[in-house]
């Protein structure tokens, strides 16, 4: 039987350095194992269960504190602050793009309407989710390109960040953006017509939540083209949620091949090129499916077309990764894995 805390310890080793493991995590787990063994030996099964729960919670807290404190501090040094730079640049890029994407429709509204401060604030708030839904994936590209990935550990942390960004984008495109879009439309309706709309305005595709879009795909349509279109809309929305993961992996593939972090100009160029390529793939996948001269929706499943940009970027990322591995194997001095001894602390497993 595995001793309590063994799995948690192996997880903690991924995030914490050797010193943190020896000083914080291991003592907590050793005490947990000892207390649990005492309770079992005494035949107190319920107490042993209680000890286990309390112990696990305590160890989790220690892991969180340890990972957040010493490990990140040491990791920053070992990885040349790669993760810190990734997070900083991603945050800066996301904020900048959000401001840009909010400002465009707001300027249009300001040009045609006389908006009070209250209306301006409300419209801004309603526009933020849709702006963020596009800005977060873009920010991820710029962040990863800026931070680089000098070690295996920093690459793993970057991938975790991408997962976090994807979950955030899923929340945005799935629920917050449709609500924001609808609120924006209704506010604009009231501002333009001088009266509040009677009830809710009819929802367009962009105002439907993921659940609503999913429901549409289940409806029966006479025309197969409409059924295909609904399915494409649903899968496109879902695919966009995973854009940070696809774009981020691609950026990681580029960064892994570099010994040093890229300069601002290179990051800007590569980042914009990557985002533009993603947008083009999205646009042309849509166009190829439903517009002349191709209009291949009868022959291509909508799910393939909707996920095409992500698939293309994942394949590119894989090729870049393989190229880096091949180069590293050919020239060990190019080994980009950073200080491996720090990647895997040599603490004996229990």
């Amino acid at each position, binding site marked *: 039987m595995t001793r309590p805390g063994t799995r948690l310890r192996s997880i903690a080793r991924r995030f914490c350095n050797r010193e943190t493991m020896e000083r914080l995590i291991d*003592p907590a787990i*050793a*005490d947990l*194992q000892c207390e649990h063994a005492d309770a079992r030996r005494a035949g107190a099964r319920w107490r042993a269960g209680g000890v286990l729960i309390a112990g696990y919670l305590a160890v989790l*807290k*220690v892991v969180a504190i340890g990972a957040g404190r010493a490990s990140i501090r040491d990791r920053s040094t070992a990885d040349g602050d790669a993760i810190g730079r990734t997070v900083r640049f991603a945050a800066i890029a996301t904020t900048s793009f959000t401001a840009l994407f909010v400002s465009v429709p707001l300027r249009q509204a300001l040009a045609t309407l006389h908006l009070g401060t209250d209306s301006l604030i409300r419209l801004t708030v309603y526009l933020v989710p849709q702006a963020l839904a596009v800005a977060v994936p873009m920010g991820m590209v710029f962040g990863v390109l800026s931070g680089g990935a000098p070690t295996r550990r920093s690459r793993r942390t970057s991938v975790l960040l991408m997962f976090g960004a994807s979950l955030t984008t899923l929340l945005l495109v799935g629920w917050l953006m449709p609500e924001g879009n609808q609120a924006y439309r209704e506010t604009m309706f009231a501002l333009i017509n001088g009266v509040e709309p009677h009830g809710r305005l009819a929802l367009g595709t962009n105002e439907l939540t993921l659940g609503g879009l999913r429901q549409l795909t289940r409806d029966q349509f006479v025309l197969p083209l409409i059924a295909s279109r609904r399915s494409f809309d649903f899968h496109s929305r879902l695919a966009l949620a995973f854009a940070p993961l696809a774009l981020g992996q691609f950026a990681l593939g580029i960064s892994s091949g570099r010994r040093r972090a890229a300069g601002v100009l290179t990051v800007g160029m590569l980042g914009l090129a990557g985002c533009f390529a993603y947008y083009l793939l999205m646009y042309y996948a849509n166009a190829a499916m439903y517009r002349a001269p191709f209009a291949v929706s009868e022959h291509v499943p909508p799910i393939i077309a909707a996920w095409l940009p992500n698939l293309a970027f994942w394949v590119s990322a894989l090729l870049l990764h393989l190229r880096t591995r091949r180069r590293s194997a050919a020239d060990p001095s190019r080994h980009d894995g950073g200080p491996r001894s720090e990647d895997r602390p040599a603490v004996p497993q*229990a």
Partner: protein
Amino acid sequence: MPARNAPSLPPKEALILELLVQESELYGLQLVAASRRKLKRGTVYVTLGRMEEKGFISSRLEDAPADQGGLPRRIYAPTAFGRRVLNAYAHVTRTLMPELAR
């Protein structure tokens, strides 16, 4: 010679030092039990690690019983410096705040 800051002794660290001076050697979990819920098992190891960095306490690994196995346990003891800091802290507390002195 580099200037060193005067060591600070927050209440939790003072409590740990007091317990260790009384018992001479304790495990983290024993400290939690002896503190009567003033110390939490989720944070005691972090505090102990910090105190070790400050030089107030030292620790050594003690192998788990052979029949039980598992990770070696870490046992903590006060250093001479830690004892001096605790004495100074108790003295200052008694002098400045006699109502709080134990």
